[in-house]
């Protein structure tokens, strides 16, 4: 087999452990910001609805019911705050690295996770753009392997241009074109 051109071959095993230290690219700030605003908007609406029920003038609540709603409101606010902060940190923590033969995705705040997908095993790629993504000219890429839908490699928060370039790069990669 003509494998002579492969460039990873001559590396020693100690060099290969560099997956943990290699430089990575973070997601687009616009994506993180948009995500934050969307989440804040969503939780504000939820909190507003609860507050609306508590203070609506049409059929005033009994004292005990009003009390219950106070607790619910406090709990919901705390939970929302927690989710918003954690999600923000989670988005911030996400980064990716494109290498010659594989793509890695780093994520996680408390539970750190690194997912590495060799190009050789890619079945197909999807480029997705939601309404907000379109407005901000963002896109996400989904990479499918034979590992099944549970193990789809998803990389959000790229500019549309980057996503297209990346898709083309992966599709043109010799491993994908030969083995796909």
């Amino acid at each position: 087999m003509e494998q002579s051109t492969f460039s990873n071959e001559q590396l020693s095993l100690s060099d290969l452990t560099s997956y943990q230290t290699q430089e990575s690219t973070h997601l687009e700030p616009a994506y993180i910001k948009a995500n934050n605003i969307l989440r804040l908007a969503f939780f504000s609406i939820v909190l507003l609805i609860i507050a609306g029920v508590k203070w609506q003038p049409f059929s005033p609540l009994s004292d005990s019911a009003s009390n219950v709603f106070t607790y619910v409101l406090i709990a919901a606010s705390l939970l929302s705050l927690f989710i918003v902060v954690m999600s923000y940190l989670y988005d911030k923590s996400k980064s990716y690295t494109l290498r010659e033969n594989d793509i890695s995705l780093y994520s996680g705040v408390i539970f750190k996770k690194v997912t590495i997908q060799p190009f050789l095993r890619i079945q197909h790629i999807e480029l997705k753009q939601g309404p907000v993504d379109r407005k901000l000219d963002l896109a996400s890429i989904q990479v499918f392997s034979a590992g099944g839908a549970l193990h789809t490699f998803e990389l959000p928060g790229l500019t549309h241009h980057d996503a297209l370039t990346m898709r083309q790069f992966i599709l043109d990669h010799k491993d994908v074109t030969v083995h796909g």
Partner: protein
Amino acid sequence: MDNWQRVSKVSILDFFVKNVIAFVSGAVYSIPVIWASSDTLKDNMQYVVMGASAIVALLAISSFLQYYFFKYRLKEDNIEIHAGVIFKKHLDLPFTRIQNVKLITPVYFRPFDYTIMELDTAGSVKNEAKLVAVPVARANEMKQHILEYQAIAQAFDATDPADDTGESVEAGSGEADTKNEKLLNQRSIVDLVIHGLTNNRVFIFLAMLAPMADNIFEYADEFLLSFGLDVKGFLFESQHPWWQLSLYLIASLIVAYIFVMLLSILGSIIAFYGYKLTKRDNNYIQRSGLLSIHEVVMKKPRLQMIVRQQDWLDVIIKRINLKFEQMGGIERHKQNSLRNKLMVPSIKDDECEALVADVWPSNQLTSINYKAISKRFIVRGVGLFITPITLIICVIAALNQQWILIPPAVVFFLVASILIWCRWKRWGYAIDDEFVYVRKGLLGVNYYCFAIEKTQMVKFKQSIFLRRHKLCHVNFVTAASSLTIPCIAQDIGWHLLSVSLHKVESLKKSWM
């Protein structure tokens, strides 16, 4: 051969049976209505008979139409199917996309010597092609044709090492019957009874009865009543002393257990009766089944993972279930996964070893030295899950002054901790030049093994707790399923991942 053709008229029978089953399972919910209006129905018996015959006639007509509109044609390199009465379906399936050719022979096809041919594709279940009622000889011929085509296509495929394809092409000229198949393993009734005892196969039996489940429970109740056994009255209204009640309870639990065991044995026999695993060239063929004979074919390169399973009872009586996993173990075929998998039930150790050696000769599934995972696994389990639960129970008990709850909580703590220790003891991993091995279990023990070059994707996971102790979980995703090794040193974890990625990316071998 290029012209459209219909399947045999016998297929009407199969369509009819499928329609009746669909109708009955749909009509199960109307049983209460029918039962409630049974008096009215009895008075108008002639209408009931007319209605019933109308339904049967309708089902028969639709079966005939299904048969009439079902056409297929076989070309050099693909098969086309036209089907559907109202919703037309046109399927064009190139042979290279076919993952698996299965022959299923339902009990009502056996006298006619016909079979159902199922062509599995890698795609969704919807795209599956099914040829109902093909003469057995013709089905074998077609299967051979497809396999031959695939073998030739593979031989031309430059990416695949021409390791064993030559052999398959050569053998293609032979007959399609079972004569040149080499018998690898077969199971006797005794083996199947053992299998039923050690593995819960009740669901196979229950799945067959599902459409009638409601009735069965109703009848069971009536049946017990007819023996003068009034369960409700017995439990709540009698003045029996407590020891008598608990004796009855224990006795009935034992009876129930035996009953379930019997069902499980029955299920095992239904699924695996006449089990035969044979090999022809590079294809492993499994045939089994009491009512419908299922045939599963696995091409050797398609094998992703070998699983050697032993439940605690299996460990005691030294029997093993050996599974050969092909692709898509997780999502596809959820319902009758057991019948679509290649599994040799309840074999002995030497048989298991012989089979594994036949499939992957250089494999060291049981002989390799497994390394233990970190003892932090126990600390984590006890500290993160068991202790908090015990403490919560104790605090609640103390606050309510229910001191009687404390001893069970302590017992729970001890038992759960011992179980975590057992789990830790079973965990083990190893790697050699070709394979990654994982051992896990609680009371039973399972061995997993996959070829490194068939890895689809790898994951590295680390929580704050693990990071502090320089530990990690690693996860390998293969086309069959994913395997996690928890709590190992992070250097070793990265090493395992790097080595496997390097293998995948440098060898560039196909995973199927």
